[in-house]
Each structure stands twice: as C-alpha cells, then as structure tokens.
C-alpha cells in the first residue's frame, strides 16, 4: 500500500483524535491562562498560585502517592490471580477469566457502593472482626486512606489482571517445567521465570491501574470522604463548587503533566524488559 493511501486511511482517526482530544485540551490550556471567568489577559498566575502553595502541592503529591499504593496492592493480588488463571485447567480458565472480567460489567458507582456496605461501621468486615473478637471497637475503614486503597485495588483489578494474563498465557509452559526440573520450587519459578517474562504485562497493568486509580473521582470521594482531598475532588470543588474555572483548568493541566511523567517513567522501565523477551 502506498504511503499516500495509508495517510488517507488514517485521516478519520486523526480527525477524531483532533476533535475529541486535542481541541478540548487546547480549550483547557487556554482557560487555564485566563485571568478571570470572563477571559482577560493571559496570565500564568493560576499556575504560580498552585505551585506557590504547599497545601496544593501536598494534594498533588498525596494523589500521586495514593496511585502508587493502590497500584502496588493491586499488583500484589492481581499477579497471583493472573497466574492462577493462566495455569488453571482449560475448563476452569474460562470461568476464572469471566470472574475477573465480571467487575467491568457493573458500574464503578455500584461497585463502590457495595464496598461501603462491606467497609462501614456496621459493615460485613467489621461484623466479622467483632464477631471473631479481633477488636473491641469497629475498625475505621470507611473514610480512611486504607479503605480507599483497598477499594481502588479491587475496583481496578481487571485492568491489572488482563494485561498480565495475556502475557502469561503466551509464555511457553515448558519454561516453567524446565525451571522445576532444574530443581526450582514454585516460588523460585514464579520469581525468576514468570515475573521477569511477564514484565511487559505487569508494566502495562500498572500504567492502566495507576491512571485509573488517581483519577477515580467516585471511589475516592465516596470511600475517602471530604477530609481526604485528592486532585479529582479538588478540581471538581474549584470548578463547580467555587466556580473558579481558570484555576480548575490550571490544576487539571498540572495534574495531567504529573501523571504523564509517571506514566513515561513506567513506560521507559517496561521498554528495558521488552528487549530481552
């Protein structure tokens, strides 16, 4: 196929991209430079205001850090799940994969509300803890960062499991047998063979989970409440609550850049592994 016709074929996609992504982004950036709600001279005042205030910077840092913690927890549970799926008998495999994908079929809002029922003061988890006599007082899980991390990890689990599962199931199972035949137990095989070989999937899963976790407005606000302020709630409050659109736009741009940096770092990390696999 000639280059010209290839270009022509990609045109609709390029146009869609321009209209649906680039254009709104330009509007966002332009808005972030507006002096007041009605426009006015361009200013970087909103950026300066954000950077100059340690309170704002700490919200950004907390959000990025929350993403790291949620992603790690998600990986800790997601990898074994993917491993079990990949190694399971074919008959069980489809059932397991269905169970993994199931959460995607319900809305995040519904999933988050179910977690409220589980984590609440009189929720399932606390009833078990109190019933077993593990604590005298109900644990404070809802409206705590630990709760937000648990729920984010579960809600985003498919985003972690599916890329890892895809890579794991492409790995020649003889490699695992070879490792065992050389004397390695299951754990060493997992750590020395399965994990390094599934690194591209792990990185992809981490990028997806991370991006989804730090922008999960619904989960963050419903489980975390107003005292744990993360960037999405902060942006929402500035835009809708305080009607300060230019500032909201500026912090959106800052948030986006910060996330892009994290994703780029992860991506670069993943490239290094892909070379050998």
């Amino acid at each position, binding site marked *: 196929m000639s280059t010209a016709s290839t270009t022509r074929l990609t045109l609709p996609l390029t146009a869609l991209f321009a209209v649906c992504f680039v254009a709104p982004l330009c509007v966002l950036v332009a808005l972030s430079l507006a002096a007041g709600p009605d426009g006015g001279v361009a200013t970087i005042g909103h950026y300066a205001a954000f950077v100059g205030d340690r309170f704002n910077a700490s919200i950004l840092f907390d959000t990025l850090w929350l993403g790291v913690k949620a992603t790690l927890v998600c990986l800790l549970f997601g990898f074994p799940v993917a491993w079990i799926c990949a190694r399971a008998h074919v008959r069980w495999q489809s059932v397991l994969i269905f169970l993994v994908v199931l959460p995607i079929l319900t809305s995040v809002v519904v999933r988050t509300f179910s977690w409220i029922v589980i984590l609440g003061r009189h929720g399932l988890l606390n009833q078990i803890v109190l019933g077993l006599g593990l604590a005298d007082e109900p644990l404070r899980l809802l409206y705590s960062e630990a709760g937000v991390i648990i729920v984010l990890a579960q809600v985003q689990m498919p985003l972690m499991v599916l890329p890892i599962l895809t890579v794991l199931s492409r790995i020649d199972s003889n490699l695992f047998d070879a490792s065992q*035949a050389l004397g390695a137990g299951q754990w060493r095989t997992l750590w020395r063979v399965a994990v390094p070989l599934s690194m591209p999937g792990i990185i992809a899963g981490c990028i997806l989970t991370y991006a989804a976790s730090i922008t999960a407005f619904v989960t963050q606000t419903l489980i975390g409440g107003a005292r744990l302020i993360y960037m999405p709630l902060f942006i929402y409050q500035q835009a809708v609550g305080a009607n300060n659109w230019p500032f909201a736009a500026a912090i959106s741009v800052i948030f986006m850049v910060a996330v892009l940096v994290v994703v780029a770092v992860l991506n670069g990390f993943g490239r290094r592994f892909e070379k050998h*696999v």
Partner: protein
Amino acid sequence: MESRRGHELHLAGITQRFGDYVAVRDIDLKIGAGELVALLGPSGCGKSTLLRIISGFMPQTEGKVFFDGEAVDHLPPNKRGVGIVFQNYALFPHMTIRQNIAYGLEVQRVPAARLKTRVDEMLDLVHMGEFAERYPRQLSGGQQQRIALARCLAVDPKILLLDEPFGALDKNLRLDMQIEVKRLQREYGITTVLVTHDQEEALSMADRVAVMSRGRIEQIASPTDIYDRPETLFVNQFVGSTNVLPGIAGEMAGAGQQVTLACGERIALAEGSRLATGAQVQVSIRPEHLTLQTAPLDNAITGVIKAVMPLGPQVLYDIAVGDGTDIKVSVPRKRGDEFLLSGTRIFAAPVPPAGYRAFPV
C-alpha cells in the same frame, strides 16, 4: 562432583487414565544404569505421558516409579533429579547462556567460584564457550540444543529425559547433534530416556528401543531385533517399510511353516513360526530383504514389474502379483548394473538369513 555411575530406572505397572481414556496401560519397564532407551511410537501412543510421569509432572493413576530401587512417586519434579531437554529447548529467554546454565546450580546454592568453574566446564563440553554472554534468541537451533543439554547436565541429574529433542532441527544438523548427544551420554554414563516418533533417531541412538502403540509397549528390544525380528505386525510396519500379503497358514514343511497367499503362491515362512493350521495370517517381508531374478527361484513370489524407481543408492521396483496387490522390492545399486524393465516377468525371493514372517490377524 558428578558421579559417572548411572542410575537404574524401573517403571512398575504404570497406568494413566484421563476419565475413560487410558493413555498408558500397565507399563513395566526396567532401564539399566547408563542405558539409553528410546520410546518410539506415533503421536498419542502414550510416550509423552510416560515421560511426564517419570519426571513427576503428572502423578500416575496406578503403578510405581523407582530410581535405583527406591520409589520416587512422592517426590515433586524439582526433587526428583530428572533432567529434561525439551523439543523447543525451553531456554529462559531473559537470561544469558551463562545464566541459563547456572540456574540449576544456583538452586542448589553452589558457591560462586565453584559455580563459575562448573558453568565454564559445561560450556566447554558443548563447545559453546564463546557464546556465554549471548541471549538464547541470538543462537541457532543446534546451538540452543547444546545449551539446553549443558544446562541439564550441569546439575548432574540421575535420569536424562530427551523429549523429541531433534524434531526442530534440519536433517543434516540433526545427524550431527544425534552423534554429539550420544557422545555426551556415553561420556557421562547417564541413564537416558529418549522420546521420539522418528524411527531412524531411535534406531541409531538407543541401546534398546521400546515401540509403543495405544498406551502399550509392543516390543522392547535392541534396534537390530526390532528391525529384523519384529514381534508384531505394528512394529514391523511402524519401523522401516514392509510388504504385507494376506494368506492362510498351512502345514509344517521342514524348518518353516507353509502359507498359501491370497495371490495364489505357496511360500515357506522363516524358521520358528508356529501358527495354527488354517488360520488367517498376514505375511510380511521388507523390500530390501527380497532379491529379484528373471529365472525361477525357490520360495519365490512371481509377478510383473510395473514401475522402476532409481532412488540413489537403491533401486525400487513396484511389482504386481497375482490378485492385483503390489509389492515393493529394493535392490542395492551397483556400478554398471542395468535396470530390469517394466513388464518383465520376475521371481522375488527372500535373501537369507531374512525370511517371510507371518502374524496372526
């Protein structure tokens, strides 16, 4: 550190069922120390299942596996001391050649200095020293094969299992590697089980060949006996090629039993046949065990040459016999010989010590 003494492998009454399907049926097999036994058979005959049972990846339904007289059934694959070379080599793609070979030694917590010497030793053994720092995908198939073998031997396994190890190599390289592997196996004196569907590979490498079919061992014997004295029609047909002619067993006449072939000829079987008189039998004779003459011969089948195929060192004749069946005769080609022509009426008879063999239907 390696013990040059091989270990004995004994499979006792091994049966493997998958639901109603019996993959391996009541296998008894004793392999002596340092012996190389080939499990030969078509796909689905149970040879790979047997290999997974020996290595411990699949617990058998019935029976026991003994190494040197000790049952190993309770040992997981990583505790059995079985080395496996896979058809696709299964080298770890994310590790260098050196790291691949060192893998099993690291598991055994061999000290760093000894580990390095041992790896170098193994690299030398397979003549791959200069490739130590490469990655597997940078090597050719044959080179990967050597590394797979070196990785396996490095941990000094009790039993070596070769799973179709030459299947992915091209024909010339395959022969070289077969010689190489045979050399290493001899040098190490390691008890080895070779799983293959390639009869040439089995016959050329093994001390004994076990021909398997539908979960059973049909015959286990030296390559010569398997080829020259097959005990079943399956072995006869699967190993080498053969002419099969239906007939009815007759009286004993001197040393050999008489058989009346469906094409009308009456022939005498090789010595030792004892078939019930009047029984339906299949008479078998290999193409290269027959000789051709235009003059009448004892114990011959008569026919007319349909086609002549000069195949390099052999000439293959396609001959139509009485009832419309064909037989093939392969004749060594000597310098200056003239081929017999199509349409020539000929006599084909076995060249002693070969003879007609018959199997009951």
